[in-house]
């Protein structure tokens, strides 16, 4: 049996699946960290990103802030926070919130910026208030980019949530830390496979979601037509993924 097979055998072993320290429970913890951190980060970053995107003010600060936050070493931050907040779930959660903010912030303001100025002018011309411009034009049209931001922050957090095990925070990393100390490589690999699988599933769901949130009346075909007539490339809506095509 090679190591990969041993890893899968570890996953399939009933002893490792259920119970408070089985991988199902640990996987749910990993998910709870991911969605908890991304939800909190979204509450902070989305309004902030919208404000920056709508007004165009503070863009430089938002860009450098999101860039700077990305450069923070997660494990170092986690240990620093755990020294203040104590061991358990709090320090990892705060760490992951900080990790999740930059992509969401960038997605939120980039989504607004990607809206064609002519569309906004048109909205104003038909008598929409500022609030209506935001809620009925900018938010729906910026949604694909925002979902893109959420998607990358979910991916980042779900992979990094393994670190929580370092400070008694549970999640799938607990298996990996233990396995390294005991030189139990099938367990380390089994847990890693689970993290990878979880990340791939979430990535798939968000890829689908990103397609679904394209507002009605704005379809990819139109985007191409607009582009061919105008020098404004990000005209009607923007999914960054399609831009290159």
């Amino acid at each position: 049996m090679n190591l990969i097979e041993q890893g899968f055998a570890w996953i399939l072993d009933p002893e490792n699946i259920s119970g408070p320290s089985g991988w199902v429970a640990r996987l749910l913890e990993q998910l709870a960290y991911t969605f908890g951190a991304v939800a909190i980060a979204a509450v902070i970053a989305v309004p902030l990103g919208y404000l920056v995107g709508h007004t165009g003010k503070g863009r430089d600060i938002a860009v450098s802030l999101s860039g700077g936050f990305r450069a923070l070493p997660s494990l170092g931050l986690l240990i620093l926070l755990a020294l203040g907040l104590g061991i358990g779930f709090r320090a990892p959660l705060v760490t992951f919130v900080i990790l999740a903010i930059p992509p969401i912030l960038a997605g939120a303001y980039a989504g607004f910026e990607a809206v064609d100025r002519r569309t906004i002018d048109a909205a104003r011309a038909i008598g929409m208030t500022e609030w209506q411009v935001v809620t009925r034009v900018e938010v729906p049209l910026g949604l694909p980019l925002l979902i893109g931001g959420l998607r990358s922050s979910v991916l980042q957090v779900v992979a990094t949530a393994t670190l929580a095990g370092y400070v008694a925070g549970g999640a799938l990393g607990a298996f990996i830390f233990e396995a390294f100390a005991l030189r139990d490589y099938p367990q380390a690999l089994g847990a890693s496979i689970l993290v990878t699988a979880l990340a791939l599933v979430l990535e798939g769901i968000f890829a689908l979601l990103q397609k679904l949130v394209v507002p009605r009346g704005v379809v990819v075909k139109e985007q191409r037509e607009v582009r061919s007539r105008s020098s404004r490339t990000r005209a009607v809506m923007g999914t960054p993924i399609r831009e290159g095509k």
Partner: protein
Amino acid sequence: MNHMFTAIKKGRLLTGLVAVGAVVALAGCASGDPLDTSSTSGGDAAEGGAIVIGSQAYYSNEIIAEIYAQALEANDIEVERQFNIGQRDAYLPALESGEVQLFPEYTGNLLQYYDPETTAKTSDDVYAALAGALPEGLEVLDQAPATDQDSYNVTKEFSEANGVTSLSDLASVTTPLTLGGNSELQTRPYGPEGLLATYGVTVGFTPIEDSGGPLTLQALKDDQVQLVNIYSADPNIAAAGLVTLEDPEGLFLASNVVPLINTDAATPEVSDVINKVSAALTAEDLVELNSQSQNDQESADTIAKNWLEKVALF
């Protein structure tokens, strides 16, 4: 066709023979060099003269290795340092093959490596059992009084409030107890199960992965855990004012510092020097050496030099 191949093969064989012959001849020259033999005749076993000293990638172990190195150098024995080798899986084969010849080890942990089922617990028993458990070609010199082993520690406040100074006192503590330590502790024989079996103490377990470092200390101070596993030579025990609980039933395997040596390198000269060092290395000394590294950020080189000057063996 066939003939051609044979011809080529013959040609190769000939070249090979010439090459081997040349190597043998050269080797013969080297060993036959009168100057060479005279220079190694002093240290009989140490091929090429220098004795190769290794160390784990653990700061305290490196300090001890550096002490061995400087002590041998002080006695005009040539040494070569191969520090920071890592885990036993990596360095023990190198010791057996003679690539590395001398290594600071810990009796209990080393015995457990070669004999996981061992029942020896006390310092002397472990040392005796170790001599029998070592593979061919390896031996240990005298063990030092200094120990570096797992130990359970509580805060001073906890110790005073509950009247606890020994692991056997823990059974009478009524509040729930949680043990903190690296996650592998949970499955070690001296972990929660060992505490229950040996002392009748039931504890919960919280994994903290910094080997008794600042996170563990913080968790202890915050009362998230009440009992933590820290190596007995860790200067943090004294610095944080912790109380190390006594272990009258021998839950932990005693683990004294011991020099592990390849038999070929264990000349009387080398053994004599290292045994003198071991005899002088007390438990307090080891804590002090570790403290100089951890708290004063001194290099292993300086710490070893200062200690050798202090004990004035050579």
